[in-house]
């Protein structure tokens, strides 16, 4: 996150607020969408967004053009993790260990296709079961339609990391969606 700006109170506050409302506030839906998927519930999501918007307003002077959506979403993400007093990197190691979950990708079964094709509520439940570092990948890419570069900007990761993590996120999501049929079918290790 950028450092607080120590400029003296400005006389053109109104103009600044107008710029903020024109450039940042339009992404309130995007901010809320990310916050809601990260925090799982409406009240927390509202707190996260409200706090993030206050931070954004505070740091707005250090925003020099560029993509306001990426800038705001990065603040939302940081706010979420700080409010939860959780270092995203730590939780990442808890929830996502590459050695425990090697990139194994079986060919899809017919069940996979039908399951994926239908049930939105199953999709939602499966997405909510993903660990946050993977869930945010899906949310940013599929719901927010960010490019890899934008995701890298939001999460502070390298593009290569974004690519592999997104791949893993999709594999986990597919596993979640097809978990039961697979388990019933054959007792393979996860």
């Amino acid at each position, binding site marked *: 996150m950028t450092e607080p700006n120590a400029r003296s109170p400005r006389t053109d506050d109104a103009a600044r607020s107008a710029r903020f409302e024109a450039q940042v506030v339009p992404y309130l839906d995007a901010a809320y969408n990310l916050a809601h998927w990260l925090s799982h519930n409406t009240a927390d999501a509202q707190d996260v967004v409200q706090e993030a918007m206050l931070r954004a307003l505070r740091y707005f002077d250090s925003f020099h053009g560029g993509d306001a959506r990426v800038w705001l979403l990065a603040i939302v993400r940081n706010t979420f993790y700080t409010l939860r007093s959780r270092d995203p990197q730590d939780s990442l190691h808890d929830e996502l260990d590459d050695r425990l979950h090697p990139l194994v990708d079986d060919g899809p079964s017919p069940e996979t296709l039908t399951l994926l094709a239908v049930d939105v509520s199953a*999709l939602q439940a499966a997405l909510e079961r993903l660990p946050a570092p993977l869930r945010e990948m899906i949310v940013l890419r599929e719901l927010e339609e960010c490019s*890899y570069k934008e995701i890298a900007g939001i999460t502070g990761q390298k593009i290569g990391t974004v690519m592999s993590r997104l*791949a893993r996120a999709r594999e986990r999501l597919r596993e979640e969606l097809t978990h039961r049929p697979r388990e019933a079918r054959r007792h393979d290790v996860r």
Partner: protein
Amino acid sequence: MMCDDAGLLLHAYLDDELDAADSAAMARHLHECAACKARYETYAIMQKALSEPSLYRRAPEALKARWTTPAPAPAATVTPLPVRRRTPMAFATAAGFVAAMLISAPAWMHWLPSRGTDNAIVAQAISGHVRSLQGEHLMDVISTDQHTVKPWFEGKLDFSPRVKDLAGEGFPLVGGRLDALDGHSVAALVYKRRLHVINLFQWPSEGAPAPLAVAQEHGYTVIRWTGDGMHYVAISDVNEGDLKQFVLAFQNEANPLR
């Protein structure tokens, strides 16, 4: 390409994030390898399922109200919902002016043209785009079939617009209408990118082909170019990468990789 490599690149391919060489190699591999092809299709289905609008959580009105200045006229009726944290004073002072600006957006965007013809076109395109999203102005002919949309323009314009369905590229054609831009009658084609609307304006050009020019204004991306004797202006609130992809898809529908 080996399946191991393909496993990772598959996702970048799905997201259109590969460079031309990798993309071509991936397309070849998918053509040859049934297993990877099936896997790709599964993820494509999953991606499509995730574009379901109900999965997108929009900010509650109460939250929006807290961050947008209320409209001047019905200001008295706006009941501030319980505010958990103070809204900055500075913010409140921006009040009516910005709201008026936002609410009358299509009108004041006409002020912008003072910076020259290019900006005038960008501003008019934004204005046309915004107008098209209000009420029922989006489409005069509603069809996903290019062979319905194209003939519809006949007799309404003094040129025949190029109409292509780009559903295969993720930009389905949904309709068209007449519009006016830069003093010309123009064809406006309406495409969708998931929930977003893309307007593509076109009208005849006398000049030489001009490369893509990208502009960002008010959260909209505008891409202009000239080719095949036509001026084109594409505008949308999708991100710049997606709109570029749309333009490339439109320019080159016969992409052998697809």
